[in-house]
């Protein structure tokens, strides 16, 4: 028998025993236990260490607000740190470790930090560690040395570097009503809304719905409350229009009633079934939301309030009633309201012992007194706990007379033996989501709580969320909210009967007992009441300053139990009311969310892959692939034993010598159709397209509105009103969007349609002196001779039965053709071309050779059109029409854009046989160590087999005027330096004889 397990009672399944380990020790619990309840049942009260002082801590709550009992779960081969023991459902094989301790939880060296207590109060680090002004530790060195130690002491759990093996998924949901919280109010709201036939989603963060009904011990509708809740849940589950989500925390309330929720689908199992998600990220778009999120209990702050064994009174009640665990053998209750009296009675009913009830209020009502009597004690009214005893476990409390009106203590301090204290400072509605939705919470003095604001989005509140406590209120406000959410008025129908209670949950305005010793406000971050007062003394009085200066409320629990007491202490120090001290805005997530769950199906994938029709062919030929946006493109087809460099040089040479073939399917392609198609092109291109003849193509350049170069490509006139525009691979999307904007916004009068046909066409470029010969061997239905297919001409024909469209254009400077066919025929045509090329040893080439060929020709691409260059910089001024305006013509002549000293396009040749480098700079001074000012940079480089030299393109100040001069390549990052000659960027066949041949 577990030392603290009650003989009977609770909702656990005592017949099912579950084995688990904590720090390597074996324990047993029962189905239905949380890790926290199972550890408590085993008599384990020390569960964690605090952040800063490494003080021993036990579990403080029974839910999501837990600040102390954080553990690391070891599951599926990875570590999952910082999980509250209160949120872990016990399952067979569960392995957890405690955190932030060395060498063990019981004996932790970090606890030495406590010796420095006063020295390391709030903000101490801002005042020191600045280090010496001179010497080896000057500057930031001394601080960084200290920081190293601080960082090691800080942090909580440890992560490892193993990739998370889990699957996550995203789910989109739409509903009329989303009910957040499956307690009594939430269930009532869901039923009321569902009965009208609306689509309802109910989300409950705990494993079971019912909430308070599960442990209240009350009667609802003539049956035990938990039975009532279970039956109600079963009824809802049967309805087609209701989706019940348990283990689902709604954590974010975004614009347009879009809410985010995390479902822990399989965390309660020993392992996630194969193919299933560990967690599911829900995005729920709800017409209306019912917030029935309940309330959290907050503590009273007193000296020594952090010892293991001190817990919220409501949590104690839950452990006893829901889990059948008594948190101690002798419990002292400390409260400022009536709710804790029920806890006292519950402890006694379960066979436990209440040592005392200490109440700060001078007197109490009859109902509370009756509960005290039932618990076997007389309440010590007008008293407070002023200190505690014990080490790693609580051994006693110290009690003194207390005047709630003045906050003063009097009389003798008396010790009371106990190993458990249940404390209640009243209840704070969970208004996080309402605050995220856009409005500020409102402080209500008569309730001593922040209440929800007026809705700024479409939500209705219900239950304890509204600051009205009690089962009766939950039943009625829940049903009302459900009806209101579907646009119905409140019902007069009878509600389930439940006995009235006279317990007064309005707390006395006492949230701190001042005394000597450390009184913790934020338990996890070790922020004490004195720290709050220190912040006040130093002027950090605004709530945001307080939070930032002391770190109050910034721990993993986000201050769920500490925010209100912290504010109360600051307000008291400033002599103002709590609302004047302010409240911070709540930010998503309400409770921590696995980052992988938010990445969901993109975890491990990030972006979809894009393949050309010939992709598998490239792979089979051993091409090394490289990402080009989302596409995969061959870098080079290296033969066995060949490096990529050797391969591209071979490929480049083969094109110049005979013929090569390259996959150009990735080029952006846009069908531009309609009577005004030519007119549109004239407006977006710097040059003229209306004069282009049908069956011909033209190279075009686009500018941005600010006059800088945007994109280039060829556009083919397939018919009078039918153009095929090509763009660079990278700019396919932006150009499409740009053109659509032009048509929708700038020139809606133009009758032009745009369609992305990038995927419709597979493309292969055949380049080299033998290119025509290759086509002659395989093309039918058209001639490809110079007369039929002149430079920039287009013909239609067939290759091995597949229709093709061939345009004679050249990026390489060779006689070259682009062969386009339907993408579904892409591989077929490619293979036919390869076969036709066999007599000429046609060589497939990749991006590197493509680059080398274009560099030899001085063609520009993305490295030169980098968003900062003008047409003139690239010596493309000949393309700027003077006859018509075009996008960019208005601003392209601004003075700095036509400045003589701008960096302009040139060629560079390495003079010392060293390779050049993309991104290398050019300098005038021949001093490797002091190269002086940069005059430009190399945009692209290659080894040119045609010139047998390393060459490159560069943007250099003055451009052409430097032709024939010498400069130096300075590439300190690659540790290269050497002399280059600046030449024309037309390295190879400057008059284009080869491509026109």
């Amino acid at each position, binding site marked *: 028998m577990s030392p603290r397990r009650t003989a009977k009672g609770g909702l656990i399944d005592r017949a099912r025993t579950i084995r688990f380990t904590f720090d390597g020790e074996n324990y047993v619990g029962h189905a239905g236990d949380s890790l926290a309840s199972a550890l408590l049942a085993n008599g384990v009260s020390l569960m964690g260490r605090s952040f800063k002082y490494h003080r021993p801590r036990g579990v403080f709550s029974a839910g999501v607000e837990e600040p102390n009992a954080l553990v690391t779960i070891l599951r599926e081969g990875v570590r999952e740190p910082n999980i509250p023991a209160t949120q872990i459902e016990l399952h067979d094989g569960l392995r957890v470790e405690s955190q932030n301790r060395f060498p063990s939880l019981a004996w932790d060296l970090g606890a030495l930090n406590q010796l420095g207590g006063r020295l390391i109060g709030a903000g101490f680090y801002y005042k020191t560690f600045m280090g010496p002004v001179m010497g080896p530790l000057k500057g930031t060195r001394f601080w960084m040395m200290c920081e190293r130690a601080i960082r090691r002491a800080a942090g909580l759990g440890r992560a490892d570097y193993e990739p998370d093996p889990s699957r996550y998924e995203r789910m*989109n949901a739409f509903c009329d009503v989303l009910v957040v919280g499956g307690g009594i109010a939430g269930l009532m709201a869901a039923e009321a809304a569902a009965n009208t036939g609306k689509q309802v989603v109910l989300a409950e963060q705990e494993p079971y719905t019912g909430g308070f009904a599960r442990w209240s011990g009350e009667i609802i509708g003539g049956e035990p409350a938990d039975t009532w809740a279970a039956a109600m849940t079963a009824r809802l589950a049967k309805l087609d229009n209701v989706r019940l989500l348990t283990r689902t925390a709604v954590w974010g309330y*975004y*614009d*347009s*009633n*879009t809410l985010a929720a995390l479902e822990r689908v399989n965390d309660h199992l020993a392992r996630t079934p194969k193919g299933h998600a560990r967690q599911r990220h829900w*995005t729920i*778009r709800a017409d209306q939301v019912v917030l029935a999120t309940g309330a959290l209990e907050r503590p009273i702050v007193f000296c020594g309030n952090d010892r293991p064994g001190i817990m919220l009174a409501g949590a104690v009640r839950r452990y006893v009633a829901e889990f059948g665990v008594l948190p101690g053998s002798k419990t002292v209750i400390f409260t400022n309201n009536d709710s804790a009296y029920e806890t006292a009675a519950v402890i006694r009913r379960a066979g436990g012992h209440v040592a005392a009830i200490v109440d700060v209020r001078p007197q109490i009502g009859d109902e509370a007194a009756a509960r005290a009597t039932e618990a076997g004690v007389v309440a010590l009214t007008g008293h407070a706990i002023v200190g505690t005893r014990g080490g790693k476990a609580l051994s006693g409390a110290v009690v003194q007379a207390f005047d709630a009106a003045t906050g003063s203590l009097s009389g003798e301090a008396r010790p009371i033996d106990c190993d458990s204290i249940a404390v209640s400072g009243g209840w704070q509605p969970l208004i996080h989501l309402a605050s995220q939705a*856009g409005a500020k919470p409102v402080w209500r003095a008569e309730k001593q709580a922040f209440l929800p604001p007026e809705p*700024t989005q479409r939500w209705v509140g219900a239950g304890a969320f509204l600051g009205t406590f009690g089962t009766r209120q939950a039943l009625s406000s829940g049903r009302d909210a459900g009806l209101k959410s579907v646009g119905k008025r409140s019902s007069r129908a009878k509600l389930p009967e439940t006995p009235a209670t006279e317990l007064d949950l309005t707390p006395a305005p006492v949230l701190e007992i001042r005394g000597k010793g450390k009184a913790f406000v934020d338990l996890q971050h070790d922020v004490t009441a004195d720290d709050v007062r220190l912040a006040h003394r130093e002027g950090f009085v605004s709530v945001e300053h307080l939070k930032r200066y002391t770190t109050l409320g910034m721990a993993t629990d986000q201050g769920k139990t500490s925010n209100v007491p912290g504010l109360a202490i600051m307000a008291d120090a400033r002599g103002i009311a709590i609302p004047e001290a302010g409240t911070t805005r709540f930010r998503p997530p309400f409770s921590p969310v696995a980052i992988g769950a938010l990445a969901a199906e993109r975890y491990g994938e990030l972006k979809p892959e894009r393949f050309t029709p010939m992709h598998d062919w490239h792979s089979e030929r051993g091409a090394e692939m490289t990402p080009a946006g989302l596409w995969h493109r061959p870098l080079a087809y290296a033969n066995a034993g060949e490096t990529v460099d050797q391969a591209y040089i071979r490929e480049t040479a083969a094109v110049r010598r005979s013929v090569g073939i390259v996959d150009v399917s990735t080029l952006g392609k846009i069908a531009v159709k309609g009577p005004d198609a030519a007119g549109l092109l004239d*407006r977006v291109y710097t040059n003229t397209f209306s004069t282009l003849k049908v069956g011909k193509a033209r190279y075009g350049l686009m500018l941005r*509105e*600010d006059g800088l170069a945007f994109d280039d490509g060829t556009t083919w006139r397939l018919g009078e009103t039918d153009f095929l525009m090509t763009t660079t691979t990278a700019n396919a999307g932006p150009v499409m*969007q740009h053109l*659509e*904007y032009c048509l*929708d*916004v*700038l020139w*809606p009068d133009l009758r032009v349609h745009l369609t992305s046909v990038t995927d419709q066409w597979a493309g292969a470029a055949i380049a080299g002196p033998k290119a025509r010969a290759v086509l002659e061997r395989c093309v039918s239905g058209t001639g490809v001779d110079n007369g039929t297919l002149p430079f920039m001409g287009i013909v239609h024909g067939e290759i091995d039965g597949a229709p093709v469209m061939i345009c004679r254009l050249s990026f390489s400077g060779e006689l070259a053709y682009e062969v386009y066919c339907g993408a579904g025929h892409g591989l077929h045509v490619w293979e036919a071309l390869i076969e036709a090329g066999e007599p000429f040893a046609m060589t497939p080439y990749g991006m590197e050779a493509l680059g080398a060929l274009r560099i030899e020709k001085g063609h520009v691409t993305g490295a030169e059109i980098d968003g900062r260059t003008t047409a003139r910089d690239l010596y493309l001024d000949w393309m700027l029409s003077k006859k018509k*305006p*075009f996008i960019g*013509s*208005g*601003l392209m002549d*601004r003075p700095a854009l036509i400045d003589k000293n701008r960096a302009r396009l040139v060629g560079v040749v390495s003079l010392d046989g060293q390779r050049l480098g993309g991104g290398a700079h050019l300098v005038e001074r021949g001093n490797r160590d002091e190269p002086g000012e940069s005059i430009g940079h190399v945009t692209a480089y290659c080894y040119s087999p045609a010139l047998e030299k390393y060459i490159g393109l560069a943007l250099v100040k003055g451009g052409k005027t430097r032709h024939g001069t010498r400069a130096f390549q300075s590439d300190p990052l690659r540790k290269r330096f050497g002399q280059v000659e600046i030449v024309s960027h037309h390295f190879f066949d400057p008059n284009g004889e080869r491509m026109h041949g």
Partner: protein
Amino acid sequence: MLIDCPHCGARDLSEFSYQGDATRTRPDPASTDTKAWIDYVYNRPNPAGKHREYWQHAGGCRAHLVIERDTLNHEIRSVALARRDYNGGDAA
């Protein structure tokens, strides 16, 4: 955030592409008034409150929309197709 596309209906923010201020007018294409071009290309009212702006339903029907949205709370007050001459739009 949801945007109620006049053509497609309410869709998630992730389907839309923001295209900026919709109150500027482009100078006459042939205009050589540099100041007017500068104003058009660079200057924005950038109000805190009601903002008239273009969005494209890029992950949907591809139409550009004119939206009136409050930049203080993201509330959308009106959505219309930038091209109002589509019957399809009016029928929605």
